[in-house]
């Protein structure tokens, strides 16, 4: 191959690498999901995509959470969840989100550059299952409470399950302590209903009580039928008690218990409403057509207005028509939103949800998730990785410093040891870096923190091919061969070692790529690209440099190596 062709090939490779490294605008033609019309979208294409660990962002792996609700068809539910997540994240507005199924049972979501991870997680995880239910009017819970307490007592669940019995109780022994406490409960319960303002302290007092645990803590609110009030301090405990299967069984069929979404202040005290509701929702969010967040003109609080589709509207109208005068609870993901309003008259397709104690952004997020549809089964986060943008920027900074220092050291070693030949190798090294980065950009690789470290390391390893060649040339020179012949033989003899050693490194890197997660994959890609580029530069580029050099000085007797 003539020097001319070689130079042309090198220039071509340089031009190609530079081309891939220049940021530019590219136009993508795609179908607008809303209107179905083809539109052109211009996006800025950056040469090297940064991984989440360098750019900042969030990686989530999600699985169906079947602890509360068992999926009949997990495969289908996962596909459904994937569609719902795509819609939600589209609306959320993250640039280039990655949402994909991994294996049979997992969805991976990657959101780059998000600033509010908690909000993003809430949007991904919220089931957004909306239902409207009529509150129970038969005092089902009041009637069931004594039976529930009896079950609890037979289970040996005493007044308090969270703290250990006091030393006094232990001294008195089980029976006498129980006797004393039962009498106490009745008294406390009366005090409770009589004076809600002191219920906070009363709730604490009643905690060591044995006996009628639930009837002591759950009181009718006196408002809507089926509405009960529980001191906020007792909420977690009551919640765990009423969810015991033996206890839940005491409720009559067709009645379900649901908590309100937030605590409410009554006087100085914080309480939580508990609702007994009809088991069957009159309508669910699947009939929802549109949802919008707004500020209520009267209270200035955030509300979400919604519109049902035609079938849903008809059904909603019929049901509300039948239940005029009843109270209707709006249940979102199993929690009652606001206090149930009374149905004044037949309601059509439009309605609203009042969100107390939330801001407009939360209302917007709710509208977004409602519109995108409910998740068939809740999702749990089985893996989360999240890196702040500042930490990512810091990592890049440190990586670049290490890279510069490493490069300078390598250049010094090469120049000091091999002189002019070393300079050729350093020039080759510059091209090596250009080719590696260009190649990474060409295959649209993502640069991660380990990848960056791999790049720095590869600078040290990349000179290996040159070193092998140079040492061979030195040996040939030592055998008394001419400069030109020594260079030729040196390149030829070093070839075997270079190819064999690099192929085995590529093999290990490929296994690394296959097994690794994001950051490690980035490392493997950098390694492979680096090896390919270093072979090209050492075997082809440096050789060409030598040819030019020897061509200019045909009579060169000693080689600076």
């Amino acid at each position: 191959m003539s020097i001319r062709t070689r130079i042309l090939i090198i220039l071509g490779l340089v031009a190609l690498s530079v081309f891939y490294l220049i940021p530019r605008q590219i136009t993508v033609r795609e179908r607008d999901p809303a209107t179905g019309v083809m539109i052109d979208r211009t996006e800025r294409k950056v040469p090297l995509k940064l991984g989440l660990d360098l750019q900042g962002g969030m990686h989530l792996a999600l699985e169906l959470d079947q602890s509360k609700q068992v999926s009949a068809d997990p495969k289908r539910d996962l596909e459904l969840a994937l569609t719902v997540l795509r819609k939600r994240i589209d609306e959320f507005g993250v640039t280039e989100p990655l949402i994909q199924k991994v294996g049979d049972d997992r969805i991976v979501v990657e959101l780059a550059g998000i600033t509010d991870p908690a909000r993003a997680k809430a949007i991904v995880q919220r089931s957004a299952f909306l239902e409207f239910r009529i509150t129970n009017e038969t005092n089902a819970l009041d009637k069931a409470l004594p039976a529930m307490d009896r079950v609890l007592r037979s289970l040996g669940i005493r007044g308090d399950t969270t703290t250990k019995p006091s030393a006094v109780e232990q001294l008195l022994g089980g029976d006498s302590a129980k006797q004393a406490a039962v009498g106490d409960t009745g008294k406390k319960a009366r005090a409770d209903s009589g004076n809600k303002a002191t219920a906070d302290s009363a709730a604490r007092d009643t905690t060591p009580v044995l006996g009628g645990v639930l009837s002591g803590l759950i009181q009718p609110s006196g408002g809507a039928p089926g509405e009960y009030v529980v001191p906020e301090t007792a909420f977690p405990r009551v919640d765990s008690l009423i969810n015991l299967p033996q206890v839940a069984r005491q409720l009559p069929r067709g009645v379900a218990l649901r908590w309100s979404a937030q605590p409410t202040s009554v006087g100085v005290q914080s309480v939580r409403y508990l609702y007994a509701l009809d088991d069957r929702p009159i309508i669910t969010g699947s009939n929802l057509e549109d949802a919008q967040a707004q500020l209520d003109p009267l209270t200035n609080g955030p509300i979400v207005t919604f519109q049902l589709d035609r079938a849903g509207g008809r059904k909603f109208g019929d049901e509300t028509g039948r239940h005029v005068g009843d109270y209707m609870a709006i249940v979102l993901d199993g929690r009652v939103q606001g206090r149930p309003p009374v149905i004044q008259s037949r309601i059509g397709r439009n309605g609203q949800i009042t969100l107390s104690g939330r801001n407009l952004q939360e209302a917007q997020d709710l509208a977004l998730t409602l519109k995108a549809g409910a998740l068939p089964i809740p999702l749990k986060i089985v893996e989360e990785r999240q890196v702040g943008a500042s930490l990512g920027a810091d990592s890049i900074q440190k990586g670049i410093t290490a890279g510069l220092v490493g490069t300078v050291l390598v250049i010094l070693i090469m120049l000091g040891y091999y002189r002019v030949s070393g300079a050729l190798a350093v020039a080759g090294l510059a091209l090596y870096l250009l080719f590696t980065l260009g190649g990474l950009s060409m295959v649209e690789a993502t640069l991660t923190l380990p990848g960056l470290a791999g790049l720095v390391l590869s600078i040290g390893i990349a000179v290996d091919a040159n070193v092998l060649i140079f040492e061979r040339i030195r040996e040939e020179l030592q055998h008394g061969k001419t400069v030109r012949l020594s260079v030729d033989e040196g390149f030829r003899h070093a070839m075997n070692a270079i190819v064999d050693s690099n192929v085995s490194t590529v093999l290990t890197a490929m296994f690394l790529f296959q097994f690794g997660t994001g950051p490690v994959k980035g490392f493997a890609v950098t390694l492979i690209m680096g090896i390919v580029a270093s072979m090209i530069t050492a075997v082809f580029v440096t050789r060409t440099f030598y040819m030019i050099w020897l061509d200019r000085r045909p009579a060169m007797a000693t080689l600076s190596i």
Partner: protein
Amino acid sequence: MLRFFANAKYDFIGVRRYAYVVTAAFILPGLLFLLVKGLNYSIEFTGGTLIQIHSQKTVDVAELRAGLDRQGIHGAEIQNFGAPDEYVIRARVAKPGTDANDTQATAAAVSLALDAVLGGGTYTVERTEAVGPKVGGELRQKAFFAIFLSFFAVLAYLAYRFEWRFGLAAVMATAHDILATIAFIAVMRLEVSLTVVAAVLSMVGYSLNDTIIIFDRVRENLRKHKKMGFEDILNLAVNETLPRSVLTHGTTLATLLALIIFAGEVIRPFALVMFFGVFTGTFSSIYIASPVLMAIERRWPGALARGHLGTTPSPAPASHGRKAEPVGR
């Protein structure tokens, strides 16, 4: 011209028994240490929650631990990370009573403890990693397979390019490197994360590289010096490649040193493992791969020896042809 170890004639192979003692003296206590204390796996492999925070005030570690205990997070590791105001909290055990594969409960409890002890708003969360034990177990398995399979791939490649004897010797050397590196990781109490596994695999690649370069010389010398004894052939190959080894390891160590000093806390374990790998890789190429090759050759004298002794017609002249044929094939 500046040349290190030019025309060196050290008797590397002759002193191999001392080398065995040296490596055993390192590996055995290391493995004993490993058996007693175990490896320090990162939460990626064990499952758990890691939160890195940047705190505006100094963190009282004992107080923070107590705060975590109150939230039901017991036995959390709290560590200063790089800068004095950076801390890493690792909770390997999920909050009791929660589904460990649902990673959020533990993370939430840690934030509650941080809010309570440090005060909300006085710290920023810079990094969160929460991994369920299921995901961690899968990763562990994958890492194991990756190392295992790369072994076989390299063996197959070397068997194809050289001969099975070379492949086996190289894999033995690699096994030594992995053992030595694991001993190093155990003694240094380095955290075994995905990046460290990546470092181990890269180290394997690097060490193989070194072994292959010596073997390449052995292959060549077998053809060139047909009268020479096998031990001398090995010694010659090691000595001839010595300048190259010094130079390449020098530049590699230079970049690794830059990484260890400047690249930050996350990359340091990776760079340390590679740094150690350069030494063990060089050592094993000379003192494991070569003697093992010699032992195999003595035990099963075959094609390689015949080629060497010239009982089969020698292949093309040694100085030509980019693709030298494996001897005796």
